[in-house]
């Protein structure tokens, strides 16, 4: 495993981006960070700046105005990075699929590594999703070697 990838998986710093969600997924993401669910057990830490982040958590249905911001943020993440789509809206735009303001789903804009469904997903589901993703990447890297 490359040093970069090892460092990324040992303690993935997450950056939380809402692309026009109803805020419920954001509350669940916030719950993950509280002592009850304590995502820091896995070395995950909420980064204040995208330039410090390894994992991009995206919630919301990607409306026309936030798509440009999303692309700009994705360009700024240090690579390799992982993208996690949280909630039904960022998976398939949920009930906003026919909205004039949500033309394309998230995975048509940037590559997504893991999808966590739910409206909103429980904090347990978010943690499980991210842990699964880390294990998967570790396995893949080991297989390559």
């Amino acid at each position, binding site marked *: 495993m490359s040093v970069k990838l090892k460092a990324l998986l040992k303690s993935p710093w997450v950056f939380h981006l809402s692309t026009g969600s109803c805020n419920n997924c954001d509350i669940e993401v916030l719950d993950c960070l509280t002592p009850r669910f304590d995502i820091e057990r896995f070395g995950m830490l909420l980064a204040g700046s995208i330039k410090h982040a390894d994992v991009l958590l995206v919630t919301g249905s990607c409306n*026309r*105005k936030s798509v440009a911001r999303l692309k700009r943020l994705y360009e700024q993440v240090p690579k390799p990075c992982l993208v996690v789509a949280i909630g039904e809206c960022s998976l*398939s735009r949920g009930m906003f*699929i*026919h909205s*004039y*303001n949500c*033309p*394309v*789903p998230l995975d*048509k804009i940037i590559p997504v590594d893991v999808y966590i469904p739910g409206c909103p997903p429980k904090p347990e589901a978010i943690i499980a999703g991210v842990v699964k993703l880390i294990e998967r990447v570790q396995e893949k890297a080991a297989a390559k070697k």
Partner: protein
Amino acid sequence: MDRDLVLKEIRQKLKDDILDVFDKSAKRVYIGIKPESIRKAAQCLFKDMGARFNIASGVDVRDRMEILYHFTFEDINLLVSLRVTLPKDKLEIESLAPLFEGANWIEREMNELLGITFKGHPDMRRLLLPEEWPQGVYPLRCDYKEWDKDAVRDRGV
């Protein structure tokens, strides 16, 4: 000041401009107003009677367009909605933004989403829609059609 006095005063002051009064409930009254006298009516409620301007809402009712201006009398817990009906071929009304600043943004929003022209608005720019949105397409109208050829409208499963 109580509810009946307020309604009586409105009826008295705007008697030539009122089309109909619909007394929905103890807290809610709808008053139909002629489009040309909306500024006078708003002036009367806001300046003379001390009502608070909550918000305005535009509704597309297929054969016509409606704007509801919601005013509250907070001390007596009454919401008065001035209802203005505009024909589809002439979507124009006087702006209320010079009267109170609170009408500024909602009129900009109604302008871009429904295509209603507000005469005398001080700053009619886009508020919500992105720059690439084509001119003359109004998303909240009933006859809105998808214009974006790149839009994906299936869930992919």
